[in-house]
């Protein structure tokens, strides 16, 4: 528990390096919701191979590494109604806002984008409120 922040820092640096490679090589912003969303709603048709390759790497390789590590914990709730509601909110919300934790958070804040900073303020604030309401008040998660 106490060394989790070291893993956080190392993992974070790896995430940042991935974003840096995407920007410097392909001139693309590593925003997960934008890349996936473009595949879903057809707005990313012109470069679908690149999007699909990115999603494939994101799906396949952590799975293999987790397997080599002897499995990984996600601790996803078993409450399917909560998961459906959460998934819909994340899907609609990230597309309306044009970004999520990776796009607005990592890529936006690092270029001191006001939009990224404001978006991050709102989703962390709403996330904190969501945990307070659904965990501490209603007790559903």
């Amino acid at each position, binding site marked *: 528990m106490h060394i989790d922040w070291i893993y956080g820092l190392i993992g974070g640096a790896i995430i940042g390096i991935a974003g840096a490679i995407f920007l410097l090589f392909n001139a693309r912003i590593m925003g997960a919701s934008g890349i996936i969303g473009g595949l879903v709603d057809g707005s990313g048709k012109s470069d679908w191979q690149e999007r699909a390759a990115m999603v494939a790497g994101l799906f396949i390789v952590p799975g293999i590494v987790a397997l080599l590590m002897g499995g990984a914990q996600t601790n996803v709730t078993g409450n399917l109604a909560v998961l459906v509601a959460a*998934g819909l909110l994340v899907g609609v919300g990230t597309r309306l806002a044009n970004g999520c934790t990776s796009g607005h958070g990592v890529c936006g804040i690092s270029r001191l984008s006001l939009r990224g900073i404001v978006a991050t303020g709102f989703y962390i604030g709403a996330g904190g409120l969501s945990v307070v309401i659904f965990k501490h008040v209603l007790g559903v998660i």
Partner: protein
Amino acid sequence: MRVLVSFIVGATFGVGLLISGMTNTNKVQGWLDIFGAWDPTLAFVMGGAIVPMAIAWQLTKTRKPVFADSFPAAPDPRIGRNLVIGSTLFGAGWGLAGLCPGPAVASLSYGGIGGLTFIVAMLLGMLIAPRVRTRLDQMATAS
């Protein structure tokens, strides 16, 4: 080459998410749970990720991208209504499940039926998002 780079970026991103603990929903909800057992890990992840990205943004000022003609133009700096509404909705869902789009895909192979349920709902949300956007814009012009 751009497709190969994209695959490598996705793979690296995913391994970073796994190592950092961000595919563990307890750690994400722990960060958001300021009235519970607060977990600061996410701040270290963000800090660790922002440093290489900030260096990369600096490099874009003097260099050209390797496999593209130019770097993406800075987005419209205005803070729109959709940015605020969308981020609030996203945050609510993020807190509820402890998953956002990147980690949801990265953990799909080991997240069981729960992770799969979340992803399917998220993709559905992304599919209807353009219609929600149109409706919101109509409401704004009507009022």
